[in-house]
């Protein structure tokens, strides 16, 4: 190796960038050539002088945190949101706040619309109660197929007297009665059986003034029918199919309607209509 070539390769040799063969050649040359060896020694001392840690500039301690929070301000996740809003000018703040108010209104409206209605909550409670009554072997407090036994049993247990009707002749036999607690008040639960299916009829005084006809709902696979009649609110729930449940409700209502018709008739007769 000649000195000119050595001068060219001495830097990559020092920097560890030479392949093994070239490195060995340089090393051989440095052993032979005093001038080049001297140059290499100088180069090494210069290298170690510049790479001295004292020459490095260390970032001020606060800078790292400043840069970090600047980056977080840039990122749209929550950690930076507060810092960024602090930097927003008022010019932007006003439309931004108006927009925020609109968003809040829209969200509240959606929440109101999406909130389950009272009757939905009621339906949920009714299904739970129905399921529980079958699950806990607590179907009835007063097991009787006799309406004249079941109805008086509620006396003194409730502040109202639920109408009880045996519909055994139509295939819906009365199993008994039970006290339950739904919609923050004690209610009467009348239990009927149709083949292997149980029907719970929950009865309590209605809050609304007018009578309503049957409204059918399905919750968790159970059919529910809700109606009110003569100041009483009724919920019938069963795993029975809807048609048969409607038939059952019809029978209960018809019975009530028949009684009322008879009553009106007798009143009418008395007043001479």
């Amino acid at each position, binding site marked *: 190796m000649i000195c*000119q070539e050595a*001068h*060219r390769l*001495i*830097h*990559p040799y020092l*920097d560890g*960038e030479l392949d093994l063969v070239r490195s060995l050649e340089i090393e051989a040359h440095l052993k032979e050539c005093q*001038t*080049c060896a*001297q*140059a290499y*020694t*100088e*180069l090494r*001392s*210069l*290298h170690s*002088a*510049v*790479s*001295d840690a*004292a*020459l*490095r*500039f*260390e*970032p*001020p301690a606060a*800078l*790292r945190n*400043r*840069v*970090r929070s*600047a*980056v*977080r301000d*840039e*990122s*749209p*996740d*929550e*950690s*930076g949101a507060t810092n960024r809003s602090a930097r927003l000018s008022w010019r932007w703040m006003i439309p931004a706040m108006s927009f925020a108010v609109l968003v809040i209104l829209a969200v509240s409206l959606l929440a109101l619309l999406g909130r389950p209605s009272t009757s939905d909550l009621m339906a949920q409670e009714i299904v739970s109660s129905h399921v529980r009554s079958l699950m806990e072997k607590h179907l009835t407090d007063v097991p009787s197929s006799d309406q004249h036994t079941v109805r008086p049993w509620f006396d003194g247990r409730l502040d109202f007297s639920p109408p009880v009707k045996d519909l055994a002749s139509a295939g819906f036999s009365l199993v008994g009665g039970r006290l339950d607690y739904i919609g923050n008040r004690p209610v009467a639960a009348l239990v009927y059986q149709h083949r292997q299916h149980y029907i719970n009829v929950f009865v309590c005084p209605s809050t609304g003034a007018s009578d309503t006809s049957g409204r059918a709902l399905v919750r968790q696979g159970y059919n529910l029918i809700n109606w009110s009649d003569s100041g009483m609110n009724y919920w019938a729930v069963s795993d029975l199919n809807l048609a048969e449940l409607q038939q059952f409700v019809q029978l209960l209502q018809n019975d009530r309607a028949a009684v009322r018709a008879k009553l009106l008739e007798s009143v009418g007769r008395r007043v001479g209509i």
Partner: protein
Amino acid sequence: MQEENKTAQFEAIALPLFGAAYNLARWLVRDDHDAEDVVQEAYLRAFRFFGGYRGGDSRSWLLTIVRNTCYTWLQQNRSRELTEPIEDKLDEVGFSAENPETRLLQTLDAQRVRQALAELPIEFREILIMREMEDLSYKQISTIADLPIGTVMSRLARGRKRLRELLVSRMSKESLN
């Protein structure tokens, strides 16, 4: 990439390189306060470009952005520092020890070297900082400075030669006084 994840990943990659980033910026703009601004700007840029980072050499990736931010900043604020173009000549790469004064180099102290280094034209200075202080390979430097490896080699050789000359001339002046 999820946004929260993105920030966390960016911090995990970029914050450990904070010292290297600041050191390079500080040596390029040669002012504490300006270096702070440039590093902050570089990190914000890096964060914006982070989506395009596909793994690999994170130091080269980040320092490229730091270097570019420095050059942009110098262009805007101190453009005359960039107006002295250098010629890359491969035949000027020798390192001669023929000058008897070279022995003075053995008594180098940090303060002297620091001053001489700061006086070097930026083209040589940046290569020396990257090679000697950040211990980057020729390949990494060529990526960061966007130069062919041959140019990196020649600038490194010329930079060392110039640095040595600066140091020698200073020390001879001092010894004369």
